[in-house]
């Protein structure tokens, strides 16, 4: 993307704006603060990569936007502004009308989207007719074109098959085609390529990239894989223990990470030029979200932690377009 186009994306009214979202789960063991004050925004046509390790709250953030939180969990506070409305306070029936038409989701396991006992065409046509009035034949033709768009050969035949007759990559393509079929404004993709082989993953990334570019759909791509996100996203938000610790343009976050955790993550990725050497690992493991110690959540694993870090840092913007939640960010290497 050129700088001019990029500036335009930043200035456009966002498709989605999440402000200080808190989603907590009330369990017997205590309150799990899975999402604990997340703010983010996505502009039309933009791909936001939401990165973090398991249990950091990235998926719960995605589910919160769609109102798909399991019963023990609840959005405690915050605002989710989408199409001029606050999704947190929207009644269930209105939310239901948005899901699948204006906001769609792609899951890691396509069998979560697909009904195993219904043919592909039944499910895709149902997804169209649930939100739009049109003759069945027309909807069927739409479904066929959607499958062709995601690179499924002989879509007519595939429409008539059951999910178990398709390979994993094919199923994920059907799920993606279904997500995009009503031309949504926002697609939330939760690790959709994690279970797939590299060649199939590349195909899926290619289709998703094309669809966003063609339709102007905003996308939140949730993943633990920095390599995938770095080659796909315009902006990256890094999550750790329920909060976003760093956010900025993908090239900035990858090229000169400000937060020690982002640095650690990048150092953990095996790279080509240092074969056989020890990786710069992050010591320890992610903290339990039930009894979080006060102060910075990354403190116990952070090489730069000092006395200041015992109080929790707020999100700050030490450089233009770059946000970080850290008292001692790595500004040395990031000065323009």
């Amino acid at each position, binding site marked *: 993307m050129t700088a001019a186009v990029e500036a335009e994306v930043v200035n456009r009214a966002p498709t989605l704006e999440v402000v200080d979202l808190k989603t907590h789960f009330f369990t017997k063991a205590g309150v799990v603060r899975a999402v604990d004050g997340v703010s983010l925004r996505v502009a039309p046509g933009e791909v936001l990569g939401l990165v973090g390790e398991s249990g950091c709250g990235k998926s719960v953030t995605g589910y919160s936007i769609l109102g798909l939180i399991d019963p023990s969990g609840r959005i405690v506070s915050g605002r989710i502004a989408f199409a001029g409305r606050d999704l947190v306070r929207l009644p269930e029936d209105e939310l239901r009308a948005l899901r699948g038409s204006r906001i769609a989701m792609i899951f890691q396991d396509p069998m979560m989207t697909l009904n195993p006992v219904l043919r592909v065409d039944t499910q895709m046509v149902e997804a169209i007719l649930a939100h739009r009035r049109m003759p069945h034949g027309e909807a069927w033709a739409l479904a066929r074109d959607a499958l062709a768009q995601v690179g499924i050969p002989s879509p007519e035949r595939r429409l008539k098959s059951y999910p178990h007759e398709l390979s994993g990559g094919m199923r994920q393509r059907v799920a993606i085609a279904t997500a995009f079929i009503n031309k949504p404004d926002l697609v939330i993709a939760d690790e959709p390529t994690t279970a797939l082989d590299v*060649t199939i993953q590349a195909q899926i990334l290619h289709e998703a990239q094309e669809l966003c570019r063609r339709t102007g759909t905003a996308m939140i791509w949730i993943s633990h894989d920095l390599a995938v996100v770095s080659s796909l996203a315009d902006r990256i938000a890094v999550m750790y223990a329920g909060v976003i610790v760093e956010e900025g343009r993908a090239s900035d976050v990858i090229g000169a990470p400000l937060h020690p955790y982002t640095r650690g993550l990048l150092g953990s990725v*095996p790279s080509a030029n240092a074969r056989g050497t020890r990786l710069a690992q992050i010591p320890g493991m992610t903290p339990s979200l039930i009894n979080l110690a006060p102060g910075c959540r990354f403190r116990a694993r952070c090489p730069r932690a000092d006395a200041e870090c015992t109080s929790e840092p707020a999100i700050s913007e030490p450089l233009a377009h770059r946000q970080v939640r850290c008292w001692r960010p790595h500004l040395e290497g990031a000065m323009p």
Partner: protein
Amino acid sequence: MTAAARAPIIEARGLTKRFLKAPDLAERASAWLGGKAGGEVVRAVDGVSLTIGKGEVVGLAGESGCGKSTLGRMIAGLLEPSEGVLLYKGQDRATLTGSQAKAARLAVQMIFQDPYSSLNPRLRVEAAVGEAPLVHGLVSRADVARYVADILKRVGLDPELRRRFPHQFSGGQRSRIGIARALAVKPEFLVCDEAIAALDVSIQAQIINLFLDLREAYDLTYLFISHDLGVVQHICDRILIMYLGRIVEAAPTRALFESPNHPYTRALLAEVPRISLTKRTFHPIKGEIPSPLDPPPGCHFHPRCQHAMPRCRTEAPALRTIAPGRTSACHLNDA
């Protein structure tokens, strides 16, 4: 050092594994009524030959269903080959008997992908790690507690945790328990089957570092099976690329990544997601892995290969030496 210069620890010659798909009820009924009898045969591994030298770290990479796990399990001795010979330090493993056979079995250990399903949930860690060395007489009952504590320390686990059950550990810790269990019988050769695939990036880095440390400490040889080429590239000296039951290319890591020879290797390497500063456009290879039940004739890769010639559709290319230490199975090399 090249592979040939080291004493081979494992050698496979024409290793083949066939699985017979048992006929289901409908097929049995049709056979009974005089229809076509017999189940389908999957050639999961199809005539693979390889040599692994002492101290080498060899990567075995390929997409799901290519037979890499089956090959690993045969080398680890968990599956009997249908055809072919497996040599351990120059001796045919099938002909070994008594203490020699036992020593050969103990020397090759396997580490599995899923530490959830490969650990007995009802065994405490000390029992899971200590059972095998005790049974095989590597350690006396009196010493086993100290022995287990020592191994746990080696893999980065607090020996205080030895009375715990597997479910009380995190994923990374469970991986360490799996490694400790394999190390407990003092193996020389470890087959790691996607041993770090299920772990988070930061934990993955810790386990990769552990593998590197243990290699030095115990002079281990590894066969590292993974679909993740980034990981394989980081830790392996040499890489084998598998496609539909056959090895299509074998080369030292650097040479393979600098100049992949086989069209499948080239396509595979191009798709590896890399940390990059710019967005990239993906140009994926078309199609998917064909079913191993019905592999295409000739070169298995020809339906997806953009260089396919008429010859590729009929004649399977042999694995031929293309440079010192490098082999590739492609007809293009003959031209």
